[in-house]
């Protein structure tokens, strides 16, 4: 690797159901300006911009890098747009990281976003046709297969839903703020996609997330402690073929093995202090705990049940409240990456894990077939 990469600026919007106080460009600028302020840089200091978002049809803007170039200070500069389904926020951050690590750019601004209120996501997912299955309906069978295989008790799913919403109360940017959330409330919420209940599902949010990435010199000169990128990995696999296991996908296992090897992680449970993983439906916490090597196959739910993944546990997961509390789809992956970086920078505020030095950011998308991950640390590689 030619060059080290440092995360020197992080910004996000307040995520809400409807951000009708800003335009699409205004939403991105809000996140971008906060990231630049954090880095004490200006739009002029940026060499290249990389944006990421889910399908264009969610907002009705085709190839939005064209329209957004002006607002993002990209006139006369390079701007790219990444689209890898739900993992896009993560893979966008990785494309930006690669621009720095390759030595091609020195300072890159990357922003991922979704303004769900300006379109209709379920309509978009269905391609406008009746009887669409939607994201929840699509993943529900995978979740049932997991429960069937692991014999997990149904309260494991409720526990994740409660934990992440309680964590969100510590995050001023989180969309859902449900102070009175309880296991009973989750249990009694309507079943929307059997076996997934309403309160076990993510909301639809407007929001954006931005990162300023620099080379080593930029990291050394940063006004606040940077997070250093120790590994990045992406994997894609076919969505459907006989014998494919979408519950514990090979692509996720390979991606984790790749990023751990880059970061010198041999025992993820021991070596990683805090995890931000993509959990849009509560059951994905135990499923990904297994896929990412934190628990043996079939045992992920035991970590949840034992409180290991709570902020007071030894492997805190989604201290930010996660996707279950804020879901600006295209940005959701980058938020995981950003929150991981905030933890090792000691900047996570009320949801900070004391002394966190190594963090994993994780995103997935498509038919649980696209994966993006990074490992960040408080120290240089």
């Amino acid at each position, binding site marked *: *690797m*030619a060059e080290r990469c440092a995360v020197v600026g992080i910004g996000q919007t307040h995520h809400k159901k409807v951000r009708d106080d800003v*335009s*699409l460009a205004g939403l991105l600028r809000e996140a971008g300006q906060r990231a630049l302020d954090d880095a004490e840089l200006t739009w002029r200091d940026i060499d290249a911009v990389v944006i990421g978002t*889910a*399908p*264009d*049809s*969610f*907002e*009705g*803007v*085709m*190839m939005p*890098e*064209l*329209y*957004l*170039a*002006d607002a993002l200070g*990209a*006139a*006369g*500069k*390079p*701007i*790219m*747009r*990444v*689209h*890898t*389904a739900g993992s896009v926020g993560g*893979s966008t951050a*990785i*494309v930006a990281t*690669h*621009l720095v*690590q*390759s*030595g*091609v750019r020195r300072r890159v601004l990357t922003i991922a976003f979704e303004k769900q209120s300006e379109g209709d996501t379920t309509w*978009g*997912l269905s*391609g406008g046709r009746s009887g669409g299955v939607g994201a929840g309906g699509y993943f529900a069978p995978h979740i049932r297969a997991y429960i069937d295989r692991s014999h997990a008790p149904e309260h494991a799913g409720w526990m994740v839903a409660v934990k992440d919403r309680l964590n969100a109360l510590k995050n001023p940017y989180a969309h859902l703020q449900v102070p009175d959330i309880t296991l009973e409330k989750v249990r009694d919420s309507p079943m929307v996609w059997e076996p997934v209940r309403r309160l076990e599902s993510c909301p639809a949010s407007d929001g954006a997330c931005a990162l300023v990435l620099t080379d080593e010199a930029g990291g050394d000169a940063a006004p606040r402690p940077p997070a250093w990128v120790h590994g990045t*990995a*992406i*994997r*894609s*696999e*076919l*969505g459907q*073929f006989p014998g*494919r296991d979408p519950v514990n*996908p*090979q*692509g996720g296992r*390979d*991606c984790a093995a790749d990023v751990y090897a880059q970061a010198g992680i041999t025992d993820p449970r021991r070596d990683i202090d805090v995890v931000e993983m993509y959990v849009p439906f509560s059951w994905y916490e135990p499923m990904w705990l297994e896929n990412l090597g934190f628990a043996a196959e079939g045992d992920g739910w035991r970590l949840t049940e034992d409180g290991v993944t709570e902020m007071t546990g030894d492997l805190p997961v989604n201290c930010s409240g996660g996707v279950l509390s804020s879901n600006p789809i295209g940005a959701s992956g980058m938020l995981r990456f950003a929150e991981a970086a905030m933890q090792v920078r000691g900047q996570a505020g009320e949801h900070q894990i004391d002394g966190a030095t190594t963090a994993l950011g994780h995103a997935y998308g*498509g038919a649980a*077939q696209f994966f993006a991950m990074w490992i960040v640390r408080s120290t240089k590689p």
Partner: protein
Amino acid sequence: MRDVAIVSFATSGALPAVEDTETQMLFPVISEAIERSGIPRADIGFTCSGSADYLAGTPFAFVGNLEAVGAWPPISESHVDMDGAWALYEAWVRLQHGDVDVALAFSSGISSRSDLREVLCLQNDPYYLMPLWADHGSLAGLQARAAADAGLIPEADTTVATPPSSDGAAAVIMVAGDRAREVCERPAWIRGIEHRSDPHYLGVRDLTDVASARLAAEAAGVGDAPVEVAELSAAHPHEEVLLRRALGLGDEVEVHTGADPLMVSGLVHIGEAFRQINEHGRQRTVGHASSGACLQQNLVCVLEGDA
């Protein structure tokens, strides 16, 4: 920068209204590019594709295209909702890391399913411009007018005809270092590749100067040595004139133009610039890609053969 060369290229050509799905259209093109390179599929360390959901009329259309690649066991792969030239750029960046030596870039576009005069309006600012339904052809007319007023093109070239849209796919194999020479008799080395954007609002641009193309060409080093052939993504006569000026190409440079098929054109131009070196013995060529109305965004790739 690490030396990276294009060693193989395949394209469907511009097809009128294909019946095949995008994946079916891509399948033989990707296979042909891989076979021509002589490199086993499993040796490809990074794959990147370009396409547009709004042409397919389906969200996540690119997901199905994975089936044309052979993504099992899982592969390291990414996608841009941009012309395939930007997929090639992302793959070139990835090859700079040193741990991966072979990359595949491909793209596809089916324009025949919809009316591009309508669909491309969705590229415009959604609040102030999109409701006007100003199509790319009409906006190109504004640029042609500006070029004529500046005396750059004859009055006759200000009538902008919308060319028929076509469908197509293309794929390129890139290899880093000496292995490029092992698998290819005459690889085309990427000596410079850069891209830039202009503002979206036409009112703040000098439409007679494609500044983004000029900046990209300078950064890619187009003018560092003579260019024999340039492959330009120009849809109209005035765009060729403006791009020639922006890229600093004199009258002695052989120029081939065309902007079809959408999402594929740029990658095809880079592929054709490779062919000029690989098959026709040229020494130094340029491939160009453009995106958006009035050449808003431009990518320039300088290729050289071994002396």
